[in-house]
């Protein structure tokens, strides 16, 4: 099973476009990332530029609209993510508990969909089996 751990740092929505994580934070997190790597469970990870440099596309009224960041209405924004392999939701939670997160951080854990979770017809459509 795969899980995504979404890092939601408080206040990241207000971070300026030149924001760069400080070297101490990076080092602390590197040790954690290495522990995931050493345990053979790390599949992917990335840090994301702050929303002030990003954009949002909304689809109200069937009309796609682009809005440039920052997004003042957004209470929580994603700062980065890990994708890990775990045998259970509990295991993913345990990994998140070990993260040297700041007091104001939140990590949200979400299971990644597997094709096998979908009904056969959906799977077959996705599979596009030869006739």
């Amino acid at each position, binding site marked *: 099973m795969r899980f995504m751990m979404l890092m939601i740092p408080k206040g990241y929505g207000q971070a300026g476009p030149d924001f760069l994580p400080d070297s101490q934070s990076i080092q602390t997190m590197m040790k954690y990332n290495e522990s995931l790597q050493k345990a*053979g469970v790390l599949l992917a990870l990335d840090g994301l530029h702050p929303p002030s440099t990003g954009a949002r596309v909304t689809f109200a009224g069937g009309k796609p609209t682009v809005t440039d960041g920052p997004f003042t209405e957004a209470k929580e924004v994603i700062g980065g993510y890990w994708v890990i392999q*775990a045998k259970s939701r509990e295991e993913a939670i345990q990994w998140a508990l070990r993260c040297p997160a700041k007091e104001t951080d939140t990590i949200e854990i979400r299971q990644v969909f597997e094709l*096998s979770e979908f009904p056969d017809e959906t799977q*077959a459509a996705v599979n596009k*089996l030869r006739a």
Partner: protein
Amino acid sequence: MPAAAFQTDIRQTIEAVWHIESARIIGVLAHIVRDGAVAEELAQDALVAALEQWPASGIPRNPGAWLLAAAKHRAIDALRRNQRIREKHQELGRDLEARQAMAAADLESAMDDDIGDDLLRLVFTACHPALPTEGRVALTLRLLGGLTTAEIARAFLVPEATISQRILRAKKTIAEKRIPFEVPPAAELAERLSSVLDVVYLIFNEGYTARAGGDWMRPELCEDALRLGRILAELAPAEPEVHGLVALLEIQASRIKARVSPSGDPILLFDQNRVLWDRLLIHRGLAALDRAETLRPARGRYTLEAAIAACHARALTPADTDWPRIVELYSELARLMPSPIVGLNRSVAVGMAYGPAAALELVDALREEPLLREYHLLHSVRGDLLRKLSRETEARAEFRRAASLTENERERRLMLERAAGS
């Protein structure tokens, strides 16, 4: 929350903690008692203690530390009480008192520095050639994989008691043969490492391919094997074949979603919808392969197999496959491990690169090989080549022969379909 649901959560959480912490705990204990089998038992005792106490007291704030402390106490007791361990220490000329003192004080720092070495010692013990294969598999999953007996039993579709027996017998053999808790000497290292990699590959294949019956895949076992492989790559980063094995596993695993239809029928490589190939795993596999080839240009067996798998992984469609390269790689593999099966796989690649006639010559030469005569894939390959050469009657006969030789129900059906169809 109803009591029953809470119990399940606790159990699953304890299992989760165990997956994460147990290898390290066993490694630290093995460092103290210099015996992998004893260390495993002590760790098990700590797990039992957790299962007994945590439902009532709740999960400790630092469950890893709790387990380690519980295990350490038992280790120090064992040092005092266990005759065999005392003898071992005398053999090593070590002062038992000093050992106990060290056990209590220096462990925290020893942990980070030496734990890698201790984990390696554990792995080499678990995969010792003196142990039967099934014992090596169970012990490796237990020691390095942090799986409980129940989990291993579920994975291999056997009763829990069977796995307990296998682990017990393995530990007895370790004790009886006085298998030392060590990394093998340099002269033996390559061969011993090879047998470790073989165990991991065996576990992967147990999940990836079914030999008999109606079952096809158990992806969870593939994940377990992948995790073991990745752990080994961190423990022995200078060993190219470890990265080669990881590369092979990542790339093969990338195809899991595409290999089986919803009804459970196998889909051959060239019929798979490559959109379903997991790009993340392919990326990881290619990176691991690169690491292996950079460390040693003269490729070992697993690195070669990974390089072949990589050729397929890089091809967006079957027509994009670099068949001449695959032929070269199989030739290299054949030089390394001359085997009729490698020869058969090479001939398939020759057929794709240089036409069915050239391949049929090679396959016909292989037909006399005792290993291949009753091998269903030889006949299936021959059938395929004959069909391409428009020798339809002979092709159908070969597919029917292949169907009669395979024990796997789904493969049999596939062969019969090919015999009937085109």
